C-alpha cells in the first residue's frame, strides 16, 4: 500500500496486469499486454492508428494496434505541463528548484517532438532499460545556464554503448521541483516514454537520497554530461562516493550538468522505485484547477494534515557547512489564532514544531502553500507577511524502513530526533 492519497490504479486493470474477476473481457492490447476495456479504447483501423501515432523519429512501440483496436495510452501533452509543474512544486516540499524553466523546456520539446507517453512499470519488458535522469547544479547557475538540447542524447548514447542496447524509458530521479518537470522534455527529445515513477516521491538535496539506494541497488555507474558536450562515466564504489564525485564533476563543468545514475531494468526497478508519482503530481496540479476552495481541494487530494493556517512572521536564514539553514515562524490566524508553528528549513522544509511539540518531520512531506491559491511556496520564496497554510502528509513507506530513515530521516539532516510518522503526531490535534 502506498502512502494515503496515492491514486488507486484505474479500476480497469491492476498494475500486475491481471484482469479483475468482476470484469468480463478477454481483450488485451497485443503490444502492451494490458487488458483492454470498452471504456478505455478508441476503435480505429490499423492504418488510421499508424497515421495518428507514427512519428518518423519514434520507435515502433508507440503504435499500439491490437486487432484493429488502439489501446489508448496516457500521454503528456503541452496542456498538461502547468498542472504537472504545480504538482511537482507541491511535492518539492520547498526545494527541488524552480519549475519554470523546466516547464518551458517541456512545452517546447513536446511541440517539437510530440507528446510523451506515460508508461507504468508493468508496461515494460522485464529487461527494458530505464534511465533515471536529473539535472544537478547550483540554483543560481541553473537560472542562467540552461541545459543544452543535446544533453539527453549523449547520455542515452553512452548508456547504449555500456549496456549494448538502447534505453526504453526515462524516469525522473526526483519528482519534487524542477527535476519532476524537466524529464518530460528529456523523454520527448529522446523519443522515449516517461516512466510513471521516480526515486524520491518528493525532493531531497543529495544524490544518494533515492529509493534505489535505499533498496540496496549498487551505485556503481554514473553517466554525466554538460552543456559543452563532455561525457563523464563514473564507476563509484558506493552511494556516498557517487555523490562526492558527481558533485566534483558538476562543479568542474560550470555547476550545471545532466546526470543518469542507477540505470536499471524494469525487473530490478520493481520495489526500488516509487511508482505512480508522475500521475500523482498531475492529479495534485489538477486538483486546484478552477476549484472554489483550492486549499481544501489540495488538502483532500494529498490526504494531508493541516498543521496551521496563518501568517509568516519571521524567516531567518544562515549559511553553515555549504548549506543554507533557516527557521520560519508562522503565527496562526482565524481558527488557529494563538498558535505558533516553527519550520526548520534547509533546501526543503524538514521539521515542524509547535511549542516544543513535533508535528511533522522529514522524510514525511511538509509543504507551505499560499492560503488563497494553494500554490506551493519554495523555501527561498518565503517572505514575512505571506498568508500561508502548512500541509504535511506521509512519505512513501520505503522511506520509513530503517535504511530509508538512515538515508533521509531527521538525523541525516543533523536533527537529533527519532522519527515519528506524521499521522501519529497529528492524530490527536
Amino acid at each position, binding site marked *: 500500500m502506498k502512502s494515503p492519497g496515492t491514486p488507486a490504479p484505474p479500476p480497469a486493470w491492476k498494475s500486475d496486469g491481471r484482469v479483475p474477476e468482476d470484469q468480463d473481457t478477454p481483450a488485451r492490447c497485443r503490444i502492451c499486454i494490458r487488458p483492454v476495456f470498452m471504456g478505455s479504447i478508441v476503435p480505429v483501423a490499423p492504418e488510421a492508428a499508424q497515421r495518428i501515432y507514427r512519428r518518423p523519429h519514434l520507435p515502433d512501440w508507440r503504435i499500439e494496434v491490437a486487432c484493429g483496436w488502439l489501446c489508448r495510452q496516457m500521454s503528456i501533452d503541452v496542456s498538461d505541463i502547468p498542472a504537472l509543474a504545480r504538482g511537482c512544486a507541491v511535492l518539492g516540499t520547498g526545494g527541488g528548484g524552480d519549475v519554470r524553466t523546466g516547464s*518551458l523546456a517541456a512545452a517546447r520539446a513536446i511541440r517539437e517532438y510530440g507528446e510523451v507517453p506515460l508508461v507504468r512499470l508493468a508496461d515494460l519488458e522485464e529487461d527494458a532499460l530505464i534511465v533515471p535522469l536529473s539535472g544537478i547544479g547550483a540554483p543560481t547557475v541553473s537560472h542562467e545556464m540552461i541545459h543544452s538540447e543535446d544533453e539527453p542524447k549523449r547520455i542515452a548514447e553512452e548508456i547504449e554503448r555500456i549496456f549494448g542496447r538502447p534505453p526504453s524509458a526515462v524516469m525522473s530521479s526526483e519528482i519534487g521541483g524542477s527535476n519532476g518537470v524537466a524529464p518530460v522534455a528529456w523523454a520527448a*527529445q529522446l523519443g522515449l516514454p516517461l516512466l510513471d515513477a521516480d526515486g524520491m516521491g518528493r525532493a531531497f538535496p543529495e544524490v544518494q537520497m533515492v529509493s534505489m539506494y535505499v533498496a540496496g541497488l549498487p551505485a556503481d555507474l554514473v553517466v554525466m554530461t554538460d552543456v559543452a558536450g563532455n561525457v563523464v562515466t563514473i564507476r563509484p564504489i558506493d552511494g556516498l562516493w557517487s555523490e562526492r564525485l558527481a558533485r566534483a564533476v558538476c562543479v568542474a563543468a560550470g555547476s550545471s550538468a545532466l546526470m543518469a545514475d542507477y540505470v536499471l531494468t524494469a525487473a530490478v526497478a520493481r520495489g526500488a522505485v516509487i511508482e505512480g508519482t508522475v500521475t500523482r503530481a498531475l492529479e495534485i496540479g489538477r486538483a486546484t484547477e478552477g476549484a472554489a476552495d483550492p486549499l481544501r481541494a489540495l488538502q483532500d487530494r494529498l490526504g494531508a494534515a493541516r498543521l496551521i493556517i496563518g501568517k509568516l512572521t519571521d524567516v531567518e536564514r544562515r549559511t553553515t557547512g555549504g548549506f543554507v539553514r533557516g527557521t520560519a515562524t508562522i503565527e496562526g490566524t482565524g481558527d488557529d489564532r494563538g498558535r505558533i508553528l516553527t519550520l526548520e528549513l534547509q533546501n526543503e522544509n524538514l521539521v515542524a514544531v509547535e511549542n516544543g511539540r513535533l508535528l511533522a518531520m522529514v522524510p514525511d512531506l511538509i509543504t507551505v502553500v499560499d492560503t488563497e491559491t494553494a500554490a506551493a511556496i519554495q523555501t527561498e520564496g518565503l517572505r*514575512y507577511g505571506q498568508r500561508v497554510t502548512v500541509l504535511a502528509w506521509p512519505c512513501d513507506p520505503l522511506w520509513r524502513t530503517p535504511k530509508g530513515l538512515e538515508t533521509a530521516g531527521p538525523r541525516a539532516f543533523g536533527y537529533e530526533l527519532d522519527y515519528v510518522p506524521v499521522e501519529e503526531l497529528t492524530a490527536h490535534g
Partner: protein
Amino acid sequence: MADLPELGIGIDVGGTNTDAVVLGAQGRVIAKAKRPTTPDVTEGLRAALDAVLAELGHESAREADGPRLEREADGPPPVQDRITRVMLGTTHATNAILERRNLGRVAVLRLGAPATTSVPPLSGWPGDLRKAVSAGEAVVPGGHYVDGREIRPPDLDTIRRFLDGVAAEAVAVTSVFSPASGEHERLVEELVRAEYGLPVSLSHEIGSLGLLERENATVLNAALYGVAAHVTGALVAALAERGLRARPYLAQNDGTLMTLEHAARLPVSTIGSGPANSLRGAAYLSGVTDAIVVDVGGTSTDLGVLAGGFPRESAAAVEIGGVLTNFRMPDILAIALGGGTVVREHGIGPDSVGYRIAREGLVFGGSTPTITDAAVAAGRTPSDGKDWLARLGDMSEGMADMLESAVAVADEMVIDAVDRMALGKSGRPLVAVGGGAFLLPERIPGADRVIRPEHAEVANAVGAAIALASGRVDTILPAGDSRSEAIERAKEEAAARAVAAGADPSRVEIVDLLEVPLSYLSEPAVRVHVKAAGPLAR
C-alpha cells in the same frame, strides 16, 4: 535671470489622470494641475502642461504685484525662461506592450550555444506579442560560465549570416552570464553598429541574473526604441511650442530620472515609473525617508515602502504583457480599494465607478454608494473646506449601517496590507498620498503615525520633478582576497552609469550595496548588487 529661482516641472501620466506640478527654488510646490489621461497619452500631457503653466502665470503675476510696472520696464525674463527642467513619467511604453502597438521588429540573438538550446528565445511569450516583436531568433556560440570561462568564443560569421537573413529595426543581444562577463555582448554591439547600423540592446545593461527573464526584458527594450523616440519627440515638441527652453528628462522605475539620450537606449526602464514617482514624491513632501506609503486612487490603492528615500525593490520576477522579466521594479502591493469602490449590502468592491464618481457617488448627488461616501459618513473628508457631510444629506438607517460596516471592512483591508508590506518592522510612519488619501483612518496598527502631507494628491508628479539620476550593477564576484577590489570596481561602474544617466559626477553616492553568498560553486562567490545615485548635473 540670475537672481530669480529656477523652476522644474514634473508630469506624471497615470491610468486616470495626468498630473503636473511646478517645483520652486526651495522645492516648494508653486503650481499644480490634474487633467484626464487621454488614450494617445500625448494630448493629456499637453493639457496638463498648459494648465500648470497658466497657473504659474497667475502665481508669478501675484508675486510681482507691487513692483510689477518697474520690473516690466527692466524686461524681466518671462516665467517660461525660469523653467530649467521638465521631468516626465509616462505609461507610453507599458501601453505599447499591453496593446502590442508601435512595437519595433527585433532580431533576437542569444550567445550561449551549445548551452541553453533546450529553451530557445521567446519561449512562453504570448503568440501575438511574439509575432509583433520578433524578426527572427538565433542561439549562436558564445557566452560564459559562472566562473568567467568562455563557453565558446562568439561566432561572428554565424551572427552575420543570421542578421543578413532578417528584416529588423533593432537587435537584442543576450549572452550567458553577461551580468558578470559582458564582453561578448559588447563585441556583438560593435559588429552590429559598424556593419548594420541598427540600434542594439545589451542584456547586461538591462537585467540581472536569470537568462530568460533578462533576455525577455532586453527584447522588449529593443522593441520600444520607436516608442521612446515618439515620446521624446512629443515632449521636445511640446516644450518648443510653449517656448520652454527647459532640459527634458524621463522618469524610470527606481524613482530617478534619465536624460532623453539615456532613455532612448533604455526605454524599458520607464515601465513602472508611476508607483516609483509616487513613493519618491511622498518622501519629498513628508520629509521622511523611511516609511510605508499608501497611495489611494479611484479604483485601487498602491502600497510601497520607502527605504533610505528610495522605493524598496521587488524580489520577485515581474510580468509585463504576459512576459516574465527580471529588471528591478518597486515592490508594490495593490489592493482593490479606491475612492470609487462600490459599497453593497454584503461587502465592498472590487468594482469601482472610477472617474464616474463625480456623477455617481452619493456626495456628488448620484445614487451609487461608494467608499468615498462611507468615509464622509464616518467623518473623514477631503481637507478642502467644503461641507462634505452636509452633501450626504439624510440617509435611511439601513444605508447608514451599510456605510459604517463598509468603512470597517476597508480599514481592515488597509491594515492587513500595511502589515504585509511592513515585514514585521514597526515604528515607521505611514505617508498617505493620492486623491483618496482622506479615506484612510487616523490610526493604523504597524505605523507609528499617519502623515498627510500638503499636495499629497499630486505626489506622483512631485516625485517626477525631483532631480536625481542613478545607475546600478548586479554581478557575481569571487569571495576570496580579490573581493574588496572587485566590489570597488562594481561601485565605480555603478557611479559611471549614474553619470551616464545624467547625474553630477562630483555628487554621485553609493546608495545601496547588497552581497549574497552563493552555494554549490567551485570557489566561494558572492552576488553583488550596487546602486549609485546623485543630483542631476546642471
